[in-house]
């Protein structure tokens, strides 16, 4: 301990977010978390391969039922077989992105809140948003779903009669982003309950996302307007794949159809931010009443 603390560069580290731009910081953190994830995989390659392989099998199993139904009946309702494959690819890509970017229980935020693990986030010298956007980035161990989803999408796009233009690709990406935001917002919205009931609501994000996950592959055509309205807003299953795919594939020909999911995602996100902030204020007042390190960094 030769050097004097006084000559150190505390000032330099005092406001990292100020020194570097937020986006640059996020990219830098993603790179670091990717390296951590790669090191985790590389530490036991055999185990990692089994892990990724089993993840891929689960992901394929999840969509196979719907795929077989579409095959057996030469499509479902207004959806042709190839359109069903596109929707399944879209839904799997959304799940894959969530798994890849929001691992370590960031997606299952109620676990972090309920287990008192937000304290770990709060002692990091950066906005909480940056921590939550980056901490769960696991591009190697969590990307099996994403690869399956992209594969299905490419397969479907090759067989679609639609002209694939740049504008269409941009709309596809915007909708995928909006679908990811919808699921994330839904999980955080319900997960916020853990601020007030840490023990009772610890698993609520997991239940909320499972609900969306299990229903995401079903075409919702033919449902009553009330039920459909509910599945587009209260439980936004329709936003995970059905509504954006209808728009992208031209099944819903309304000119605004491609913007329904981004619009709902925006509203849901704003509402979630409001509730989550209220939860954070409560956390600030009450702190974490319980603590468990389960699922935290490992």
């Amino acid at each position, binding site marked *: *301990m*030769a*050097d*004097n*603390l*006084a000559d*150190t*560069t*505390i000032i*330099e*580290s*005092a*406001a*990292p*977010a100020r*020194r*570097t731009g937020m986006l640059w910081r996020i990219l*830098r*953190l993603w790179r*670091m978390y990717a390296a*951590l994830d790669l*090191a*985790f995989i590389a*530490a036991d390659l055999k185990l990692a391969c089994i892990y990724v392989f089993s993840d891929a099998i689960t992901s394929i199993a999840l969509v196979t039922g719907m795929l077989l139904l579409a095959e057996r009946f030469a499509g479902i309702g207004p959806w042709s077989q190839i359109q069903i494959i596109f929707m399944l690819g879209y839904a799997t890509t959304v799940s894959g992105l969530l798994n890849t970017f929001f691992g370590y229980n960031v997606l299952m935020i109620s676990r972090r809140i309920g287990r008192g693990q937000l*304290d*770990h986030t*709060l*002692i*990091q*010298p*950066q*906005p909480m948003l940056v921590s939550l956007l980056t901490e769960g980035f696991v591009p190697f161990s969590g990307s099996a779903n994403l690869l399956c989803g992209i594969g299905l999408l490419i397969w479907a796009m090759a067989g679609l009669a639609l002209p694939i233009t740049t504008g269409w690709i941009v709309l596809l990406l915007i909708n995928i982003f909006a679908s990811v935001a919808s699921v994330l917002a839904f999980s955080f919205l319900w997960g916020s309950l853990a601020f007030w009931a840490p023990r009772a609501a610890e698993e609520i994000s997991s239940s909320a996302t499972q609900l969306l996950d299990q229903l995401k592959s079903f075409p919702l055509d033919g449902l009553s307007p009330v039920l459909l309205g509910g599945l587009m807003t209260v439980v936004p299953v329709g936003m995970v794949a059905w509504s954006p795919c209808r728009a992208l594939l031209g099944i819903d020909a309304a000119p605004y159809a491609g913007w329904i999911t981004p619009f709902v995602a925006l509203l849901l996100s704003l509402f979630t931010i409001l509730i989550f902030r209220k939860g954070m204020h409560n956390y*600030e*007042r*009450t*702190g*974490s*009443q319980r*603590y468990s*390190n389960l699922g935290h*960094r*490992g």
Partner: protein
Amino acid sequence: MNALDHNATATSDIAVELVDVYKTFRQKQRSERLLDTLSSMLRPKVREVRALRGVNLQIRRGEVVAYAGPNGAGKSTTVKLLSGLLSPDSGSVRSLGMDPVRERARYVSRIGVVFGQRTELWIDHPVAASFEWKRVVWDIPRQRYEHMKGLMQEVLGLGDFFNSLTRELSLGQKMRAELGLALLHEPEILFLDEPTLGLDVLAKRMILDFIKHLNQTQQVTIMVTSHDMAELEQLAGRIVMIDQGAIAFDGSFVRLRQDVTDQRQLVLETAETVPPVLHGATLVKSEIGRHEYVFDAAQTRIATLLEQAASQTQILDVETHRAPIDEVIADIYRAWRKP
């Protein structure tokens, strides 16, 4: 026991300042009776727990302060307030001139926090990976990082297990790595909440030596909570004792002993098995010519006791001991608990 024997100093010299801080938690009460459980669903019974009641505390830069108190006294609440994890109901909390909650991101880059029962280490990765993680998240300049990493490896002896998986380390090794990680960004204040909990004697010794060394060489302000009073006495010149949310003592360990009682132990070995009768001392134990007494050194001089003993029997050996600090504190806690 309400002594505040440290003098107020210039504001710039103050690292931590709590002024009239109150914090109350609400705890839902549950009953084992089914009827009560059902009725509490509609009208929950809530008990208010006053964790802090008008706490005033100042810590000067470079000071090591032991923060002690029985379970539930408010120690962890204070550390959480100072770590930016909790806001007070009323009163003011300032540390390094900042509000820890409102200026959280800027503030936490200048402090280090170690909770004995929590870890910042990535358990499925080597210690080295956690250090690299800290470098990026805390945005530590590469040169400073390399310097501090080397320093921590050397002083805390991390070299042997720096590349081992964290989950495979012993508790002592983990705590050393945890301390190294907490200090990597060269914090100005270090909050240590039970840093030696569950460690063996050797690991504890190493951690304590390191903390002392850190304060002496780097002038890092340290606030440490522990239930191990002997350990706190070795570390800190000043002890702040909290009981039921209020500061009950703030001063040196020497003052603490004097204020409570300067209780000492006297052990006499005599030629005869019958213990001598000493006025001003209480016989605690006597076996085969070895007699143990306790006495208050503030009331009775040891020379007087030895004169009394020598007049009654032949003294073969004499030992005197101060009462262990744990016993002194236990007496204090017992006194606080008396209605």
